[in-house]
C-alpha cells in the first residue's frame, strides 16, 4: 500500500515544483528580493500577528517567505538540471568510449574515474567555491566536476555488456564505424540506466547546493536559494522559526519526491539494477542495492558515495 502510491506522491510534488519554477512570477504574492522593513518578522497567517499578505510570514528584511520559497524552486531546479546535464553528457561520453574501446584508453579513463569517486565531495566543493568566489555559475561547474565520474563508471559497465551482444558484432561485420555503432546501438540501450542515475542524482545535487548556500559558499544573497533562507533564519530560531522551517520543508519534500521516483524508476526501467534489488515494493527494493553493489569493492566505494552523499 505504501509502495504503490509512491509514484503519485513523487509526481504530484514534482509537477507542483516545476509549476512553481515556471510560473513563479504569477504564483508568488510578493517580490522575492524586495522587502518592506516595517513588515519584518511577521509570523505565518495562522498565528496571532499573522498577515494575509504573507501566508508563511516574513524574514528580518520584511521579505515574504512564501514568495522566496516559490522563486527558490527555480534555483534548485536550474542548478540540478544544468549540473546533471553537463556531468551526464561528459560522463556518458567518457563511459561509452572507455567501455567500447577497452585497452589502455579504458584503463586510463577508469583510473581517472576512480580518483574522482574517491574525493571527499563536500569538502572539495566548499573550498573550490569559496576560493573561486561564490556564484551561480561556479556552483554548477563545481557540482558537475564532482558528479561526472558517477555517470562514467555506470555507463562504462553497461557498454561492456552491450558490446558483447550479437547485434553489435553484426554491425562490426557489416563494416559500420565505431562512432555509428555507439550512436545507433550502444547509446539507446544505455538510456534507461542514464535516466535512473540522473534522477537519483537530482536529490543529491539539491542537497549539495543547499549545503553550499547554507555555508555561505554557494549561490550568493539576495538570491532566494533555500539553503540561504535557512541560514538567514539561524539567528532567529527562538523568535522567528518560520524563516528556517519552511524552506527546509520545501527542500525535504523535493528531495524525498525525487529519491522515491528514482527508486521507482530503477525498479521499473532498468532490468539489470532490478536484479540487484528486485523485491515487491519501492521502499524495500531500494534496500538490497547496497548489499549487492558491495559485492565488488570498486563499485562498493562508488555505491557508498552515492548512498552516503557525504553526510550532507
Amino acid at each position, binding site marked *: 500500500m*505504501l509502495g504503490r502510491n509512491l509514484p503519485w506522491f513523487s509526481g504530484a510534488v514534482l509537477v507542483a515544483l516545476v509549476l512553481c519554477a515556471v510560473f513563479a512570477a504569477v504564483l508568488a504574492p510578493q517580490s522575492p528580493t524586495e522587502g518592506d522593513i516595517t513588515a519584518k518578522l511577521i509570523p505565518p497567517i495562522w498565528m496571532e500577528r499573522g498577515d494575509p499578505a504573507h501566508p508563511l510570514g516574513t524574514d528580518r528584511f520584511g521579505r515574504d517567505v512564501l514568495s522566496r520559497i516559490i522563486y527558490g524552486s527555480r534555483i534548485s531546479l536550474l542548478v540540478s538540471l544544468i549540473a546533471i546535464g553537463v556531468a551526464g553528457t561528459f560522463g556518458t561520453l567518457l563511459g561509452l568510449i572507455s567501455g567500447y574501446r577497452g585497452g589502455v584508453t579504458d584503463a586510463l579513463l577508469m*583510473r581517472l574515474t*576512480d*580518483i574522482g569517486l*574517491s*574525493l*571527499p*565531495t*563536500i*569538502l*572539495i566543493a*566548499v*573550498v*573550490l567555491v*569559496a*576560493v*573561486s568566489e561564490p556564484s551561480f555559475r561556479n556552483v554548477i561547474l563545481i557540482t558537475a566536476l564532482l558528479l561526472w565520474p558517477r555517470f562514467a563508471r555506470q555507463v562504462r559497465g553497461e557498454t561492456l555488456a552491450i558490446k558483447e551482444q550479437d547485434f553489435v558484432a553484426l554491425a562490426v561485420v557489416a563494416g559500420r564505424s565505431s562512432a555509428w555503432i555507439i550512436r545507433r546501438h550502444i547509446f539507446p540501450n544505455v538510456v534507461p540506466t542514464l535516466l535512473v542515475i540522473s534522477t537519483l542524482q537530482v*536529490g543529491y545535487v539539491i542537497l549539495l547546493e*543547499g*549545503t553550499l548556500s*547554507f*555555508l555561505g*559558499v554557494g549561490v550568493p544573497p539576495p538570491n532566494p536559494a533555500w*539553503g540561504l533562507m*535557512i*541560514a538567514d*533564519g*539561524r539567528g532567529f*530560531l*527562538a523568535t522567528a*522559526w518560520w524563516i*528556517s*522551517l519552511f524552506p*527546509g520543508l520545501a*527542500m*525535504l519534500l523535493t*528531495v*524525498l519526491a525525487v*529519491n*522515491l521516483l528514482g527508486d521507482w524508476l530503477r525498479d521499473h526501467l532498468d532490468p539489470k539494477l532490478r536484479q540487484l534489488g528486485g523485491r515487491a515494493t519501492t*521502499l*524495500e527494493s*531500494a*534496500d*538490497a542495492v*547496497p*548489499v549487492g553493489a*558491495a*559485492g565488488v*569493492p570498486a563499485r*562498493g*566505494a562508488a555505491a*557508498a*558515495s552515492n*548512498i*552516503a*552523499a*557525504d*553526510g*550532507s
Partner: protein
Amino acid sequence: MARHLVGRILQTLLSMLVVISIVFVLTRMSGNPIQLLLDVNATERDQQILTHYLGLDQPMPVQYAIYVKNIFLGDFGKSILTRRPVVEHIWERLPATAELGLVAMAMSVLIGVPLGMYSAVHRGTALDTGARIFAVLGQSMPAFWLGLMLILLFGVVLGVLPAGGRGGALNLILPAFTLGYFTSAAILRLTRSAMLEVLGSDYIKFARLKGLSEQVVLWKHGLKNALLPVVTFAVMLFVQFLGGAVVTETVFAWPGLGRLILESITTRDYPIVQAGVLVLSALYLTGNLCVDVLYSYLNPRIRHARA
C-alpha cells in the same frame, strides 16, 4: 590479493596527489600571499626578501615540488592571523571532530541495527512501516536543516538540551544525531534487507525445526550472518563523516576541524584552509583504503583471486 592491495595503495596515493594539486592551484589562484603576510608599511625590499624566502620567485614546477615536499614533511606553514604553526591549530581542533564522529558512529549503529532487525522480523507491521519511513526520510533530509530544527525543538521550545558548543555528554546528543542520522538510516535499510534474506534461508528454517528458541535463532543464527555486509558498509559510511563534519560543526558551533576550515575561509587564512582540507582528505582516503582492504580480506571470492 597482493596485486589488488598494491593497486589500491597506488590509487590512494594518486588521489591524494590530486587533492594536493587542487589545493596548490587554488592557493596560487587566491592572490599573492606576500601582501597578506606583510605589514602595510613593508618596503619593496621586504617584499623581495619574503618572496625569495618562500620560494615564490622560483618557476612553478619547482614551487610545486617544494610544496609537495613540505606537506610530506608535515610543514604546513604558519597561520596568517595568529602566526602560529598551522599544525598546532589542527591538533587543537582534531579531538573535537574525532569525539563527535565516534559518538555519531556509535549512535547510528545503536539506532540502525536494532531497528532494522526489528523491522525485518516484524515485517509489515506498523512499526516496520515507521522504521522504513524513518530510513527514507534520513536519505532526503538536509543535515543543516535537521540540526537547526533539533535545536529549535530540544533547545528552544523544550529547553532540555544545549543548543551548541562543546561540553558535557548532553552537548553531544544533538550534533551526533544530526551527523549520524543519514548513516543510521542507511544501516537500518541494510540490516533489514540482510536480515530478510537470512531469515528466508534454509539454515534458519532448519534451526527452527531443531526446536531452538526464537531468540537464539534470531540473534545467533540470524543477526550474526546478516551482519557482515552491514559492518563493512557501515565503516564505509563512517568515513563520510569527515565531509559532513563541516556542516554539523557549523550548525552546532562545535569547535572541530570542519568549523576551523570554514572560519579560515571567511578570514582568508588560506594556510589553515589548505592544511585542514589536506588532513581531512588524507583521513578520508586512508579510511576508504582500510575498508577496501578489510573487505577484500573478508570476502573469499576476492581473497583467493589470483592467489
